């Protein structure tokens, strides 16, 4: 069975479109199909990861066209790592939402299709080497996330989706504009070639392209002024979608930003680094402060994930190997911890009126396991030592210290104190308030429990023994950093015009 990156995109798309037909055949088939697909993709990603670790980046040219036009998939350790992360997370989301909307089948079908679309979009975006293809996948992600936010047909679900749609459309137009300008200048769509030809683009044009790119992809990556839509989208969407947002969509956005700034424009000396740091910092501070004042749990988690993304941006802004390593590690941690928080959080607030935190008091006794997961997540996200979050924060701080950015360190630490405040306010209330009589508990589904326990175990394992994944992250960090090695692989493969068949087994 030939295993190649293209499967990542082909198989889920195929499955997504086949789903309606299969649903007619057997009602609960539509729940199982995404599971099968995701497990297969998981298998594929594991195999490819090993191969990448041994031979280096795998280039996959689709449908025979050469570099300037053809779509090629670049499977570097970095993109590979992100892809596996996303697939794993979407598998868990699938597990979590297995029993989703048991009652009426019809929306469940739509839900699973959209979920699959979202996964394919984000994986595709990560893998693609071609800028236009990048845009296409970005659109897929955007569309499916619009639909998913509007899943509950109530008023504020629609309003959130509309807001997201409004700003998302704006983003895609800007991105498209940037691509057009770029193409006019450089004449090619392949990222590697663009980065090669980039230096002879006049600076003023180069700057405007960069700005357009930044704003376009920034909205997706929830930078400060551009992330207005995010909190509403997160909180109004059904809980599994919230997890998807945190794990997939934001990651894709950040990857896009990084890919553009690092490979296309090159990070050294071009002022993008400090810009990223500043923007990241502002996002971090703003998000955390607003999170402190939130009363509903899901909005609070939303702001906190925006804040974490700001933190990742800072790390990427610093740009040293250490920092990038920390950033990727933080992305990994953020995915699993935020996932756990969203899952357990949504169970906790399932039936409290508009998700208020103050009704949560005393849930510790009633739902011991869920609140244990939530507090574990809280401890981890804040970065307390024995858990995963600590190592990533530590590495980023170390990188910042090497760069003698003492102000930045202080800012990060002050912000994490604010983070501690609002997380522990919830944990404190969970365990030590007096339970209100009328609160009925939402029994978690089996799937949900499995998903959450996997995540919890992941946090603990990474926390106690981080060396498991540091190997992969190291490789990923080095791959994103040296762009010329990326170009060599990407162009090299395309020049030989090797058709699909003779990819090495």
């Amino acid at each position, binding site marked *: 069975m030939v295993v190649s990156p293209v499967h990542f995109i082909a198989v889920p798309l195929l499955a997504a479109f086949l789903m309606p037909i299969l649903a007619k055949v057997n009602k609960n088939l539509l729940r199982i199909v995404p599971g099968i697909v995701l497990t297969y993709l998981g298998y594929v990603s594991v195999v490819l990861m090993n191969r990448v670790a041994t031979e280096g980046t795998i280039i996959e040219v689709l449908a025979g066209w050469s570099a300037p036009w053809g779509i090629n998939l670049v499977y570097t350790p970095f993109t590979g790592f992100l892809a596996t992360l996303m697939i794993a997370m979407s598998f868990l989301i699938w597990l979590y939402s297995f029993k989703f909307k048991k009652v009426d089948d019809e929306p469940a079908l739509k839900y699973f299709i959209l979920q699959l679309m979202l996964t394919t979009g984000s994986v595709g975006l990560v893998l693609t080497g071609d800028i236009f293809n990048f845009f296409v996948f970005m659109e897929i992600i955007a569309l499916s996330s619009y639909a998913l936010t509007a899943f509950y047909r109530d008023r504020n679900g629609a309003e959130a989706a*509309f*807001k997201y749609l*409004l*700003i998302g459309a*704006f983003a895609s137009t*800007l991105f498209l504009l940037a691509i057009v300008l770029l193409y006019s200048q450089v004449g090619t769509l392949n990222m590697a070639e663009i980065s090669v030809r980039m230096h002879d683009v006049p*600076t*003023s044009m*180069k*700057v*405007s392209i*960069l*700005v*357009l790119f930044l*704003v376009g992809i920034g*909205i997706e990556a929830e930078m400060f*002024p*551009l992330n*207005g*839509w995010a*909190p*509403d989208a997160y909180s109004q969407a059904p809980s599994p979608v919230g997890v998807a947002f945190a794990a997939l969509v934001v990651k894709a956005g950040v990857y896009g930003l990084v890919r553009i700034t690092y490979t296309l*424009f090159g990070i050294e000396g*071009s*002022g*993008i680094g*400090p*810009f990223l740091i500043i923007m990241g910092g502002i996002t971090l501070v*703003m998000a955390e*402060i*607003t999170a402190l*004042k939130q009363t509903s749990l899901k909005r609070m988690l939303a702001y906190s994930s925006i804040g974490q993304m700001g933190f990742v941006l800072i790390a990427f802004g610093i740009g040293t190997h250490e920092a990038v390593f920390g950033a990727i590690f933080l992305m990994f941690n953020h995915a699993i911890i935020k996932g756990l928080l969203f899952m357990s959080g949504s169970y906790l607030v399932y039936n409290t009126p508009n998700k208020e935190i103050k009704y949560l008091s005393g849930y510790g006794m009633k739902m011991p396991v869920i609140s244990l997961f939530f507090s574990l997540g809280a*401890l981890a996200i804040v970065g*307390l*030592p*024995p858990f995963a979050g*600590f*190592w990533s924060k*530590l590495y980023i*701080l*170390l990188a*910042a*210290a*090497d760069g003698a950015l*003492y102000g930045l*360190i*202080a800012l990060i*630490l002050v912000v*994490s*104190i604010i983070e*501690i*405040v609002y997380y*522990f306010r919830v944990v*404190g209330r969970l*365990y*030590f*308030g*007096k339970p209100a009589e009328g609160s009925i508990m939402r029994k978690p589904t089996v799937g949900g429990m499995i998903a959450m326990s996997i995540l919890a175990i992941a946090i603990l394992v990474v926390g106690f023994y*981080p*060396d498991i994944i540091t190997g992969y992250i190291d490789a990923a960090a080095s791959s994103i950093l040296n762009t010329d090695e990326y170009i060599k692989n990407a162009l090299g493969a395309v020049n030989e015009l090797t058709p699909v068949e003779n990819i090495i087994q």
Partner: protein
Amino acid sequence: MGGAILAYLAKRITPMLSSIVSFLAISSAAVVFFTMTSSTDVVTVSVRNFTLQFGLNAYSWVFAAMVMGISALVSLYNIAYMSGKDRLGYFNLNFTLAIMSMMGIVFANDWISFFIFWEIMTWSSFLIVVYNGIDEGKIGTKYMIFSAVGGYAMLMAIVITNSQIDSFLIADLINAYPTFGHGMQAMIGILFLIGFSVKAAVMPLHVWAPRAYSDSPMSFTAIFSGLLSKMGIFGMAIMFISVFSKASIGDTFIYSQVIAWLGGVTAVMATFYAVIQKDAKRLLAYSSIAQLGYIVTGLAIGTKLSVMSALFLAVIHALYKGILFMAVGAVERQAGSTNLEQLGALIRKMPWTFFSALIAAIALAGIPPLGGFVGKWMLYESMITSTNPSHLFLVILIFLSSTAAFLYVYRLLFGLFLGQEEPEWDHVKEAPAPMVIPMVLMALTLILLGYAPGLLFEPIANGMEFLGFENVGWQMSSLSNIWGDTVDMQYVWGSVVTLFVLGAIFITIKNRKSTRYVTTKDIHTSGEIPEAHENLTYAVDFYKPFERAIEPVMRKTMDFYYNHFGNGLESLFGFVRKIYTGNGQTYAMYVVIFLVILLLIGEQIFK
């Protein structure tokens, strides 16, 4: 060495469901610790590009022994104290985690593992502080914020030191410290000090301490105030002795001056607060802050004698604070309340608890025959004999707080154990055996240390030599200062005890037959015969006159400033939140503005 680590690793895995298991785990760790002999081999755990080193040196042996010994006893106490309370497994998990993390700190050779265990200690003690659910005064969040501030200040310092000398080992920091620039030395020093002084509850950062100590269950508070705060002292000692002493003279002077005076002010203010408290637990909480103030002053002065006294006081304080908190816990468990104004005359019902509380109180007040005096004597001598004059005025401050200590010590003993016998407390019986044994054992150690303080001087001396002092002299039982004045503790102990015994014998023998016991109802109330229900104890507002005398000093509490600061922040955040208005148009407008700005100034940024 490996054994000890193995033991506390074992603890970490078994989430104790019953306190007996936790007691076994801790005492097994203690046994392993005391039996293991060699203290030099190092265990390393490597994480990505740096290694976490665990090793035991002479200095940390003192603290390790203290932690192990006292926590083993307290966990025995814990069995009886916690039986019958709910969520036992949860409490014991955190209880053992906290103790394990303290051991971790003491073993850590490098800053990262030091910080890891420091944070574990923080949040596990946080989960216990909020254990019994009373959260008025937002104690949980207040404690978390302060320890987070402390912890993160330390993390920042660690990270900066690593960037300077890119190694985490404590030893490297010590030798590399002189080479840093002036500003860098100051920054690292101050950040570390903030981190440690939060835990050691030094004045400005002590606001969390009184409620945290009094709200958490008593068996943990014995550990909390006795040992957790000593971790702050452990770190501070390293900083003061080995790091600052090597820094430029100008710096050390400022540090030691400021911290010494802070310690002194903490001691005085905390004692004044302790005197006017109505609840035994709160009183003890303030008193332990005051005692910590002494220790911090001792460290800050930095002469050989004062550091010896500080470490000696640290151990003694852990002992008698442990006893007192356990005693109050026993009273709370038996009588159900610790309000000094209602309780009374428990001495006849709980004699053993009273005995150990009395010994602890004598040690706390620093009265001669017991260990407390030894520590206090050295502290005073070091201050009087020190060269810079400001220490002399500090002596007065410290002496004021130690005399006022007699007040609250007496109020504690009187409130709980003496006074009128009320029918309300007739049901009280002596605390169960597992509670009384640890208390009495600790009391005996205090008496022993009074007789031969040398037993404790020896490890402290080795520790100080390890840290940086040369040939720290110590004698088995006589204390001496640099002016050559000595106090021979054996002599003192002997004369006081023999005289006391003689006096007691004389007064019992003298017309033995016709001396009779009479209840406290049969007192001179100008002829009236008080019925059983009439309560004649004078305990309400016990020190009202003293309170009126020191009233001007007490008007503003530290909380007052912190609350103001907190509200200020709150309103600022409220304003910031308004940016996320919630409707789509404004978000779109933000994006456009951002785009425009970027395009305009894009030139300069992305040249």
